[in-house]
């Protein structure tokens, strides 16, 4: 096979030709408007990653406020006395219409769920950290389709605009799952439910395009010398995620499209009054929405693999096991959707899905044990990202283990649709994904912004988040086992103490996040200049400048060592004040083993 390479064959020093571009990617373009236009039209994966990050964190704020409103309403149960006076409607109270307060409560939890799932957790890590670091970790100049990347950012923006429009129009109260026939028959005369479904549909497009882009990038743009098993585990996590995004999202696409048809044109697919079937909707919905649970968690697991290895300065334990566990989870993801609808299936169907669901525990446990084994005898540095990785292990283990009684039919009979479920998925979604995102954000923040943050302040915020989260959600396990159903503004008096503790926790949690925001703003405004490789990490993104230049690397990097060979490799841009050199005896031992 002969291939005439158009540029490099003629100019062996072609890589140097970009010298005039080698400014930091954050450099302005001479004036506010040229810089703004440059950012709005950029195809640079780093700028797109930063823009996604800002958008996602903004929406996280909205979703968080909605969550605080939900918790506030639950401080006091709604009571209607014999004479018709209503007490306990803290969110909204109207003496003329006693039901209005409950509707507002329903809207608050729907907006919280829809924003957090579709706009924050699903795109969260892949679109922000993934966009920024996937090409850098592969040693590439950009993702495979940079313009498609820009398009998918604008699609994300459009979907979010619809979501915010719905908030401005007073929100929807269907729950984030849009179950039919409620979602097709309520809110008549308004377009809010349609807008919200449309928002989710549009966001799905963005998700598909990002996933497709990442899959091709991993296949085609790895640095010379980088085989599949030389890729950092974050890349494996993103790759498995992208595969699910590509394969699952079209199904929610067609589902939501049919739902919109049903609402707007009154065709009968899901509404039993029109000859449709609501259980079909549930199957369609969960066929996407269960795999998407792993879209949420797999990138987080990738982040944790990086952070634990780097901050323990250890070769990751069981590299291949972790990589294959990611793919294993991606595979199992597609055959367990039925466990969301045990109540609407035959007994046999429930038994089958229950059995399949237990399979998820295997690859997940493989990962957890490998991370713990990685830390064993490592030289652990308790940096903010590492603290968050430990928080992740703690919370995610609880989240995973409490999934087992929910997958078991006999216990689920008691626990389903209760606060136990709420607590379980918050331990996985928040304790997993959001905490992993915080770990990743603190790990890569110096590289992204070129600034250090105040580690002590960040550690205090980490503690607040940890305590606040557990106070909020651990109490909900008790509420659930005692029989408190989810999605009610009112409850019997004996639940009030636990609800109040949970609400108190949500305030601590909110305080922790406000603290993190302050730390980040302070870092950008007045942080010291960050080093190129502050953690002494070995993956390729740390070989770039801080912040990276527009074309990422001065020369195309060539891989000479594995991503976690801490015991034998001098880190790039090594500073002897920060990190000791590897022990020469160990290096010699490894070389002996290899020859």
């Amino acid at each position, binding site marked *: *096979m*002969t*291939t*005439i*390479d*158009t*540029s*490099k064959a*003629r*100019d062996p020093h072609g890589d140097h030709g*970009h010298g005039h571009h080698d400014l930091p990617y954050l450099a302005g373009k001479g004036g506010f408007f040229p810089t703004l236009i440059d950012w709005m039209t950029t195809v640079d994966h780093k700028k797109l990653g930063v823009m996604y990050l800002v958008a996602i964190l903004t929406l996280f704020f909205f979703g968080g406020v909605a969550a605080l409103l939900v918790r506030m309403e639950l401080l006091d149960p709604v009571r209607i006395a014999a004479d018709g006076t209503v007490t306990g409607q803290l969110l909204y109270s109207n003496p003329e219409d006693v039901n209005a307060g409950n509707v507002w409560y329903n809207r608050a939890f729907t907006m919280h769920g829809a924003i957090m799932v579709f706009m924050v957790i699903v795109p969260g890590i892949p679109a922000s950290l993934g966009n920024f670091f996937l*090409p850098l970790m592969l040693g*590439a*100049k*950009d*993702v*495979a*389709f*940079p313009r*498609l990347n820009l398009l998918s950012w604008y699609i994300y923006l459009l979907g979010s605009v619809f979501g915010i429009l719905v908030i401005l129009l007073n929100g929807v109260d269907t729950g984030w799952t849009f179950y039919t026939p409620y979602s097709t028959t309520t809110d008549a005369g308004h377009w809010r439910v349609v807008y919200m479904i449309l928002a989710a549909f549009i966001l799905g497009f963005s998700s*598909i395009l990002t996933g*497709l*882009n990442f*899959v*091709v990038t991993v*296949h*085609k*743009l790895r640095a010379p010398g980088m085989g599949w098993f030389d890729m950092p585990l974050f890349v494996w996590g993103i790759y498995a995620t992208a595969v699910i995004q*590509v*394969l*699952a*999202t*079209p*199904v929610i*696409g*067609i*589902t939501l*499209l*049919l739902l919109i*048809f*049903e609402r707007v*044109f*009154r*065709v*009968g*697919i899901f*509404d039993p009054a*029109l*000859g*449709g*079937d609501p259980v*079909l909707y549930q199957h*369609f919905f969960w066929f996407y929405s269960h795999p998407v649970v792993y879209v949420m968690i797999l990138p987080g697991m990738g982040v944790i693999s990086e952070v634990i290895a780097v901050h323990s300065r250890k070769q990751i334990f069981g590299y291949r096991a972790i990589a294959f566990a990611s793919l294993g989870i991606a595979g199992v993801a597609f055959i367990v959707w039925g466990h969301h609808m045990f109540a609407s299936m035959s007994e046999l169907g429930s038994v089958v899905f229950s059995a399949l669901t237990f399979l998820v525990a295997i690859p997940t446990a493989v990962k957890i044990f490998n991370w713990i084994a990685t830390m064993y005898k490592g030289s652990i540095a308790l940096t903010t990202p590492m603290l968050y990785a430990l928080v992740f292990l703690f919370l995610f283990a609880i989240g995973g283990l409490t999934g087992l009684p929910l997958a078991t039919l006999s216990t689920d009979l008691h626990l389903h649709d209760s606060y136990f479920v709420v607590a379980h998925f918050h331990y996985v979604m928040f304790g997993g994904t959001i905490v992993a995102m915080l770990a990743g954000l603190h790990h890569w923040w110096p590289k992204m912004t070129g600034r250090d943050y105040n580690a002590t302040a960040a550690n205090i915020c980490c503690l607040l988040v940890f305590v606040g989260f557990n106070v909020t959600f651990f109490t909900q396990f008790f509420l659930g086992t005692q029989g408190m159903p989810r999605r009610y503004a009112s409850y019997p008096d004996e639940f009030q103490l636990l609800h109040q503790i949970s609400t108190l926790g949500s305030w601590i949690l909110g305080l922790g996040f406000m603290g993190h925001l302050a730390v980040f703003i302070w870092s950008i405004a007045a942080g010291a200049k960050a080093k190129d490789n502050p953690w002494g990490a070995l993956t390729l993104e740390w070989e770039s400048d801080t912040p990276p230049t527009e*074309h990422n690397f001065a020369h195309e990097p060539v891989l000479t060592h594995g991503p976690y060979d801490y015991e034998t490799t001098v880190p790039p841009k090594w500073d002897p004040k920060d990190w000791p050199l590897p022990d020469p005896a160990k290096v010699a031992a490894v070389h002996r083993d290899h020859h």
Partner: protein
Amino acid sequence: MATINAQPHGEPHGGPGHDIDAAKRPMWARYKHGHHFRTQDDEFDACKTGMWLFLATEVLLFAGLFMSYTFFRYKYPEAFANGSNYLDWRWGGLNTVVLLISSYTAAMAVRNAQLDQQKALQRNLLITVVCGALFVVIKAVFEYGPKWAQGKRPGEWFSYPFAHDAMEPAWWSVYYSATGIHALHVLIGMALLYRCYLRAKRGAYGPTHYTMVENAALYWHLVDLIWIFLFPLLYLIH
């Protein structure tokens, strides 16, 4: 793996920048691959991989529709068995032939681009677009129009007085959803191929660069293939 990067017009000395005849060379020969790819082959492979992945998402999108067809057929067997009696297989068959011809011309267009047959490339692209338009016109004028006028409509809109089965609105819901979304894909495919045609007129595609034609044709074949499944399911099965 095919190597598409051999340069029939290539000069042994100097790149495009040093080439005094650069302006005279056709547009496709002047194409330079994206800076983040190592070679033009890499770029072509990446684009094709991306397109195949996208087609996989399209298949899954329609899988939802086929699934709901299966589900409702199982649920309302009488209404669905009778449904195909309302459709005229001759119109459906004609549309199948139209799409098959267009798939052939789309495939030929790719071959024409590879062989630098510019006139034939333009002609084949145009025929493909015209066939797509013909499909949509037949569908709208001879199928949707009369049926809608008779009251054979989906869900709540249904007002056909001579229905055999109470569940016929569900049949029409599936029929209109599936064929409507397919027709939308035909329109998108036509737009893509028409853009290819406009660019082909300016000499954008040739032996070393025809990614867009290839991918648009792949998309068109998929649209065709989905119709190949919809046609028997809706028109032929009783």
